[in-house]
């Protein structure tokens, strides 16, 4: 029994059903990445796993209990989420924003313990923003800002961390930076990470467990090398391709087929 799982959930917004009777288990201590074409339900699944979206049927289980029946603050001490879009309050410093990650551990009369202080410092150091504590978040670059948000999620000190498209809006250098950071958190701190990613090659390189979705269903899951095959990529994404070993890591690398027109010219 894994700590986080969805049991035959039906997910949707209003009347529109996005996934029906979907079951997923997140392996403990894995870096799980969910991939799939647009509108396949991958972000919806992540929202359900992070209790932002209540399934109309079935349930999401956290440590064997229905996640929606647990107190919000208690869940927030076990499961963290980096949402796709967050608003940095006007004029907030990096240190104060990261400190907000301690909220679920605090009370009205216990607002700031030495432990809070230490964890905030550690989280900022781990994400490489330790020097930016006094800077205003508005002044930072996109990549720095994303690392600050990750630092806030880290300060929450949750064994499980969910990330909704953490690399969107970042250029390639910052994408790699953020993913390297995730891999490091997974390997060095033993946290369970679940991320939604758009880039299949990045997913294959960084994930320890891959879930491929299409039309609200899980098409395949397992290690990247077992999941990412030419046949599956065509089935899930509708793209003809060749899969070769990544020259750097040996993980599968998807090379889309050249258009026929190019082949004719060549």
């Amino acid at each position: 029994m894994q700590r986080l799982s969805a049991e035959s959930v039906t997910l949707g917004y209003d009347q529109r059903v996005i996934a029906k009777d979907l079951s997923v288990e997140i392996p403990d201590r894995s870096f799980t990445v969910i991939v799939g074409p647009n509108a396949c339900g991958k972000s919806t699944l992540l929202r359900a796993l992070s209790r932002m979206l209540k399934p109309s049927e079935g349930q999401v289980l956290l440590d064997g209990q229905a996640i929606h029946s647990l107190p919000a603050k208690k869940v927030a001490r076990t499961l963290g989420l980096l949402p796709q879009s967050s608003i940095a309050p006007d004029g907030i410093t990096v240190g104060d924003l990261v400190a907000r990650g301690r909220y679920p551990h605090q009370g009205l009369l216990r607002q700031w313990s030495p432990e809070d202080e230490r964890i905030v410092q550690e989280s900022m150091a781990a994400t490489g923003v330790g020097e930016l504590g006094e800077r205003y978040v508005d002044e930072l670059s996109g990549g720095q800002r994303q690392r600050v948000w990750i630092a806030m999620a880290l300060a929450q000190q949750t064994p499980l961390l969910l990330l909704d498209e953490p690399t969107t809006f970042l250029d390639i250098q910052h994408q790699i930076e953020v993913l390297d950071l995730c891999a490091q958190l997974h390997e060095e701190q033993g946290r369970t990470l679940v991320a939604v990613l758009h880039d299949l090659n990045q997913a294959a390189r960084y994930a320890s467990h891959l879930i491929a979705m299409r039309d609200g269903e899980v098409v395949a899951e397992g290690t990247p090398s077992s999941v990412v095959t030419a046949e599956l990529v065509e089935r899930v994404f509708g793209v003809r391709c060749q899969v070769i070993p990544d020259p750097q890591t040996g993980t599968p690398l998807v090379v889309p087929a050249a258009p026929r027109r190019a082949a004719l010219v060549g």
Partner: protein
Amino acid sequence: MKAIRIPGGLSFRAEPRAMAVVGGLAVLALAAGVVLIGTGDFTIPPADVISSLLGSGSPAQDFIINELRLPRVLVALLVGASLGISGALFQSISRNPLGSPDVIGFGQGSSVGALIVIVFLHGGTVAVSLGALVGGLATGVAVYLLAWKKGVHGYRLVLVGIGAAAMLTACIHYLLTKSTLVDATRAMVWLTGSLDGRDWAQVWPLLVLFVVLLPLVLVYGRPLRMLEMGDDAAYALGVPVQRTRTVLMLCAVLLNASATAAAGPISFVALTAPQLARRLTRATGPNILASACMGAALLVVADWGAQRLFGESTLPVGVLTGMVGGVYLLWLLVTERRAGRI
């Protein structure tokens, strides 16, 4: 931010600058209150006012101060503080500086309630206050329900509120056309917003509500700070998003309605106080206490100005806040537009 730790595991966190601003504004509001008590046809020096308030003044001055002028100043302080908090809460919830109760229809709702009592029921002062209270609450509930779409979101709240304000303003004019000359005069006086002739009967309900709601607002102020980062981020941190928002909106509507019931629709204090307070504290979050003190100080100073600045004729305080606040709103619209937020 500085941490304050007390042995026994208690700890608090606050911005030193914000605390200094709260203290400074509170002193300013109280000092202006003392000056205002001394102001009138019969001028009393501040030292005498203070000794009377402390219970060691002459009987004649005691009567003027404690029975005639103190209630008016207390109403001003409480109304200003209530409006300041109400504005701070709404602006934080809607994440929009224009999401203020006098812009999004609650003041107008109270006016319609009060005017119905004046025009159709010919009720007395207490009845008019009750009408304003009911009108404000009803508008609050209606706007909340109309703006509800899987939870209340800032932009919707402001748009629905502005629409409601326009419709309610039409209702106010309709009610004025239906009234007799005597009632219409009375209605116009009420609509201006004034502190004239306020006595202890107005102080008590304001005070009770304020004392009950302030702790609730402060407790929920912590999760409200988290809500400013967006619903998802707040939810991820374990904030009960909808409950926080509903409780705080209810508090804000009640504070605004009780203030309006006591003094009429005093415009722009709820809009400006939180923003001025924030400029001083430079702190994130709703700045609840600073907004309360700023609102109180603003209204007391405005009331003093309305009594003294225009020679022999005294103005209702609502006229002064309206004139000054209108300029501020214009400035705000221009800067917000430049910043690309509207």
